[in-house]
């Protein structure tokens, strides 16, 4: 006896859902709904079945049906507010969101930052608790500093490991492009997954202390080709200039205070040098992608063309990208093949950034151009005898216009990943991933002989070139088995990895502008720094009763950077996860859709930032500029190099406790994590007993650092209706890092000076010291008069010895924010979507080096150099007679609230009469506003020292997206 099942699938508002898949569990029958949401399954034997209905973005519906002849059903799906069955990428595998045991945050393409995004990491700015992405400035394609939980190192690297489609990418900078990630087209990226605690990261072993970012790129789709074209066109404007005196104010001041010689150096012009070196800059970014399936071969091809102008005149980046992804499945889906290649070519023109500070300082009473044609026709300071004043600042417009620094960089990276699940044992699958990442950068810096910036050396003609090649081989076996007899699941992974990084830096002679007269010749034609890593790793996840999850990982890494005795490091982790909402007492509670407790502990390592061969006793051979004359001959010098044969891994222990929660079917969800990180064997450049080695300092394993933090994320959908929805996302981070040891022998008074400042030689403004935040400012305490005006050169005599010496300095604040907050929201009403991202750092301080260097009487009246300069307007507040570099006056509170993005999008839907053509139009403003007490150009600064900062522009973007 047979019958049939038919019916209609509708959404939560009763609208039909076309294309939903409907299947009968256990008998391998299925179909999908038509455009009216209707389906029909014929010839079904009478009996009882479980019908499964699924549709992307909706919760899977399972319902019992009894067939006895014709059976009609009406099925209503409920949208997924939080997709707990969503698959999350973890190191070497995937896991369902609800089973994740580590502290992992995912940002997928729908949540990315919008607007003119040219490098991938900018997609997640402000989106993830515990992750700080700070763009390094407004230069086209300029990189960002990424810090996950504040980083774990002092002197080695604090950059996280970035893995794209399973291939760790090099963070080494290749010349000719400002940032290695800038070579990757953000439009090709599907998801960012940030691994934060040791349970998530420890499988990456020795490279995981600073967190891991997994990036997956977009893949081929099934079905007919779908074509997507997007175009973003924008204008970048200078959001804020440094507030300097006007030409009239300079004239007034100099005439009132300057010597006759200096008064004679005033011109009659009114030049705003910042206006002269900055501009409004247009950018166009166009992307085309085609994805579909051809003869069972899912594919995606993509092309991108970016043409971005910088706000500093002449600055430009042109980038073409092409990507191909093939994702065929063979042997009944037992063999999955993923093949990816991404190529890019960037052509850059790098503007001379000296003009940024030059424009602040240069005298506004003179016009840009001089009457005659020397020095390229630009006004320059001359000595009374008519020759170029060697000590004067240079015309910033001339400095930019007459320096041609152009580079081009090619990069190709790709991988072939084979995943085979064994026919005889489908629970076991083998995965092999072979990847490469090669890049080549080269360029020429040319300065003509007449340019004042290189006048004394008759111009400049230098070439540079280097190549980077990284190769990766990974192979692992994964066994995943439900053992229903004991209500358990076992998921085990074991693997091997090999990583080779090789850079070749070419050395060229440098020439004068004529390209013939040699200034210097290199001793060696090239250098090939190289390092390799060999790894074995394993992971076991045991799940009991679907609610108790025990997870453990171990990785052992061997690095070429260490001697045989220290070469291998072992990095374990363990975690326990309790899915509380699966417990009987909570089951069936609709209000609570997810509640999970995660506890983890693990050890990770860190070796980036260590020289490749620092354990070896070597001799360096001096170069052509460092020879010594004996008799009439100049000899190269062979020098023994300082080394530490005992150098080894830096290790970080991380304790993490977290809760994942979801209410109201996930309409409110999020997580809370608290952590403590303890780094030991901290790679620190420490003073060693002088005379014991061939340097006074050595990078060695001493030092400890601790960080405590809290992270909180909340996502909510207060309104979720067909034509009206509202999304909110909020994250909060508290992180406090302190140095707990710095020296081989305990000494509380010891500190390491860091943080070079501009303006005088050898001055450092920050220090690492015991029980302080790293990079704390170490300054003199300014004394103020009754009216609150700082007194020039008067400081508090903290040690009371009657004079102000280095001993009177004290620790005052640090550039690390105490709290970071991110807030994203979007409101959709019919076809319109309004969205914004806001971000705030609280408790971070900045050293205003622009003012400390360019706002004193000796700057405006520079008798030593024989010029008159402009000064920062802050000079009117201080009236300092000479520069006071070490005054705590210049350490400013840089807490801020920023609106990163404000966007409005209109989804026109299908605009073609025949066929399908979807159109979305969007308008965005980036860097909308900054609220901060800091009076400099931008309070957000990853080093905490503000000088020559390429301003982040305010950008107005108009975009359109067409889909076929």
């Amino acid at each position: 006896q047979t019958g049939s099942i038919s019916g209609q699938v509708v959404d939560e508002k009763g609208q039909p859902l076309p294309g939903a898949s409907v299947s009968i569990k256990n008998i391998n029958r299925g179909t999908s709904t038509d455009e009216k949401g209707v389906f029909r399954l014929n010839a079904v034997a009478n009996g009882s079945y479980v019908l499964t209905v699924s549709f992307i973005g909706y919760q899977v519906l399972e319902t019992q049906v009894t067939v006895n002849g014709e059976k009609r059903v009406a099925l209503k799906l409920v949208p997924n507010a939080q997709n707990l069955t969503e698959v999350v990428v973890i190191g070497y595998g995937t896991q369902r969101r609800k089973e994740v045991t580590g502290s992992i945050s995912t940002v997928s393409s729908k949540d990315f930052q919008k607007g003119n995004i040219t490098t991938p990491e900018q997609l997640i700015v402000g989106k993830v608790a515990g992750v700080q992405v700070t763009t390094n400035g407004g230069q086209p394609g300029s990189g960002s500093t990424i810090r996950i939980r504040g980083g774990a190192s002092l002197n080695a690297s604090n950059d996280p490991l970035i893995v794209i489609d399973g291939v760790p990418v090099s963070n080494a900078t290749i010349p000719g492009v400002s940032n290695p990630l800038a070579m990757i087209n953000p439009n090709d990226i599907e998801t960012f997954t940030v691994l934060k605690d040791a349970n998530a990261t420890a499988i990456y072993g020795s490279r995981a202390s600073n967190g891991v970012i997994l990036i997956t790129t977009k893949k081929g789709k099934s079905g007919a080709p779908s074509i997507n074209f997007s175009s973003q066109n924008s204008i970048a404007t200078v959001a804020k200039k440094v507030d300097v005196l006007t030409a009239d104010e300079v004239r007034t001041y100099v005439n009132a205070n300057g010597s006759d010689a200096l008064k004679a150096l005033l011109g009659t012009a009114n030049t705003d040098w910042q206006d002269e070196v900055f501009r409004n800059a247009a950018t166009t970014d166009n992307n085309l992608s085609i994805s579909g399936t051809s003869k069972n071969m899912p594919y995606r091809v993509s092309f991108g063309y970016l043409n971005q102008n910088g706000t500093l005149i002449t600055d430009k980046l042109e980038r073409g990208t092409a990507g191909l992804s093939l994702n065929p499945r063979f042997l009944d889906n037992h063999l999955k093949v993923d093949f990816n290649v991404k190529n890019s070519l960037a052509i850059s023109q790098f503007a001379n950034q000296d003009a940024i500070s030059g424009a602040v300082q240069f005298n506004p009473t003179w016009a840009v151009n001089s009457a005659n044609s020397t020095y390229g026709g630009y006004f320059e300071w001359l000595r009374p005898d008519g020759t170029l004043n060697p000590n004067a600042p240079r015309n910033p417009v001339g400095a930019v216009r007459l320096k041609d620094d152009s580079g081009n960089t090619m990069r190709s990276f790709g991988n072939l990943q084979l995943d085979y699940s064994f026919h005889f044992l489908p629970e076991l699958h083998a995965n092999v991933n072979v990847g490469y990442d090669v890049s080549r950068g080269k360029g020429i810096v040319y300065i003509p002989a007449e340019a004042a910036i290189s006048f004394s050396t008759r111009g400049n003609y230098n070439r540079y070139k280097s190549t980077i090649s990284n190769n990766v081989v990974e192979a692992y076996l994964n066994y995943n088995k439900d053992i229903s007899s004991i209500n358990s699941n076992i998921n085990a992974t074991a693997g091997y990895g090999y990583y080779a990084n090789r850079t070749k830096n070419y050395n060229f002679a440098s020439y004068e502008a004529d390209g013939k007269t040699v200034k210097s010749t290199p001793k060696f034609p090239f250098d090939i720094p190289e390092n390799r890593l060999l790894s074995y790793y394993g992971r076991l996840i045991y799940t009991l009763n679907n609610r108790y999850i025990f997870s453990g990982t171990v990785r052992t890494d061997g690095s070429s950077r260490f001697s045989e005795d220290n070469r291998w490091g072992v990095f374990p982790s363990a975690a326990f996860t309790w899915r509380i909402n699966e417990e009987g007492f909570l089951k069936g509670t609709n209000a609570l859709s997810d509640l999970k407790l995660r506890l983890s502990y693990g050890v990770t390592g860190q070796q980036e930032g260590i020289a490749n061969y620092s354990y070896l006793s070597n001799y360096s051979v001096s170069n052509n500029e460092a020879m010594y004359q004996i008799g009439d001959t100049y000899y190269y010098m062979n020098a023994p190099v300082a080394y530490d044969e005992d150098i080894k891994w830096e290790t970080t222990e991380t304790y993490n406790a977290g809760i994942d929660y979801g209410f109201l079917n996930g309409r409110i969800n999020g997580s809370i994590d608290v952590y403590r990180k303890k780094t030991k064997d901290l790679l620190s450049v420490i003073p060693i007993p002088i005379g014991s080695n061939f340097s006074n300092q050595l990078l060695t394993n001493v030092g400890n650092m601790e960080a405590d933090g809290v992270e909180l994320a909340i996502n909510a959908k207060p309104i979720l209706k067909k034509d009206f929805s509202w999304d909110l996302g909020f994250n909060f981070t508290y992180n406090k890092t302190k140095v707990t040891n710095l020296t081989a022998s305990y000494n509380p008074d010891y500190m390491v000076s860091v943080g070079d400042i501009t303006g005088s030689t050898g001055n450092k403004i920050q220090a690492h010291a015991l029980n302080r935040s790293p990079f704390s400012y170490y300054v003199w305490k300014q004394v103020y008069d009754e009216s609150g005006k700082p007194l020039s050169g008067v400081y508090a005599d903290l040690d009371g010895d009657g004079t102000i010496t280095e001993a009177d300095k004290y620790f005052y604040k640090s550039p690390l924010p105490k709290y970071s907050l991110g807030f994203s929201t979007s409101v959709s009403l019919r076809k319109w979507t309004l969205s914004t991202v806001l971000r705030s750092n609280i408790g971070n301080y900045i050293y205003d080096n622009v003012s400390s260097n360019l706002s004193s009487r000796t700057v405006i009246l520079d008798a030593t150099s024989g010029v008159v300069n402009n000064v920062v307007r802050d000079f009117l507040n201080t009236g300092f007679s000479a520069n006071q570099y070490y005054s705590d006056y210049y350490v400013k509170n840089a807490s801020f609230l920023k609106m990163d993005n404000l966007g409005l999008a209109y989804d026109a839907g299908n605009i073609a009469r025949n066929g399908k053509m979807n159109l979305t139009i969007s308008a965005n403003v980036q860097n909308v506003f900054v609220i901060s007490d800091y009076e400099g150009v931008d309070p957000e600064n990853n080093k905490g020292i503000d000088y020559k900062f390429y301003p982040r522009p305010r950008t107005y973007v108009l975009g359109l997206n067409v889909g076929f």
Partner: protein
Amino acid sequence: CKKDLDLTPTNDITGDKAYADFNGYRSGVAKVYGSYATPSNTGTNTSDVAGQDPGFADFLRGYWNLQELPTDEAACAWIGDAGGGIQGLDYNSYVPSNVLILGMYARSLYQISVVNEFLRESTDAKVASRGISGNDAQEIKYFAAEARFIRAFQYWLLMDLFGNPPFITEENKVGKESPQQITRAKLFEYVESELLAIEPLLKETNEYGRVTKAADWALLARLYLNAGVYTGTIKYNEAAQYAAKVISSGRYSLHPVYANLFKGDNDKNNPEVILSINYDGVKTQNYGGTTYLINAAVNGDMGPAGFGIPNGGWGGNRSRPNLPNLFGDYKNTKDKRAMFWGDTPNITDISVFKQGLAVVKFTNLTSTGATPASVGGTYCSTDFPLFRLAEMYLVYAEAVARGGSGSTATALGYLNLLRQRAYGDASGNLSSFTVDDILNERGRELYWEGFRRTDLIRYGKYTSDSYLWPFKGGVASGRGLEAHKALYPLPISDVIANTNLTQNPGY
């Protein structure tokens, strides 16, 4: 596969390769010497001494700053620099965290550790095992003796500046272990014994820039002259004896033109210099060395091109009034050693370069007025005299005047040789002299050559409140210094890192 982890650098070489043949020893001894001429093996932006501006850890710049800035001869305008370190020297307010003190101390010990490594590789057994024999092997023995002289020279300086520094020889192992501290008295014995031991091992004459027996005697003479300061036991007999050995060797004579001793081509036709540090604007670049001495003494107003530094002139160092006053009417004196610029000898604000007369004794121009080849128009080719005959005349005269055995008449003759060169005739000659006259004559003859602090201490004038200069002790009118200021503090970072060190008293 595990073999894949054994990687070696492309251009560096291992110790065995570095000393594989005689040329390797040549390059090794070049570093023994070059450590006091260059900041590092890789140009001017890196330093053998880590953690600070490469210019601050240059040998001559550090030596000169520590010997001249806290005295009546010089003051530096850059009081904001080096984290207050320059101000600390200008005002005699140096503290153990002063980076300039660290730079000098670390540079001296760095050169000593390079010497030690060279000596470890230069034993007879190692040289023989590398198949080097005959003249080459003999030359390596000379190299080794010269290296020991360089080490003794640096230890003498450490003893003079710091008193009780760490002590390492080729017997110590390379690693992280704390060296032992040595007392000033013991170090005196060591330096003396080394200099005496290598005397027979050194050459009588040698290539330009290399150590000879005369350099050994010259350092012994200097050492003995100050023995009272170092050990409490005077050795004026020995001082006179070794000064006389240099003088009577007949190998050196006064350069006929005083000014040419300090010019860009002073490596040529220079009969007076016993040992020099050699610089070159192209091949031996440095932001310290004579590049510093010349550039820091000139500012834009003075026309840097006129000093062979067309793109230089940093406007930092100039004299305090005491120095020109040694010449009396310094503008109209016949004494050609008075080489000053400017018209404001007094200093009321130490940060203003134009207060105090500029000293134009050192220049990068050659004796014919040419500018030597230089990258960027800043680096200088002028060599710096570490030992020259004139000093030996003065040591002899002072030792005799202080009661050492010798002839007062001979001493007077030596002084008058210097004065005749200075005046061009006998009009400046003396008929008699006192011990104090020698200090003034040293000021006129040897100013800005790195002697002043040692000289003032020997004469008891460095810390005294009866001999003052502007901003001595940080006070405009000058004041006496605490007695412990006659020694520099050991750098704080080394006192912490080296558990065997005890800080000098008073710091």
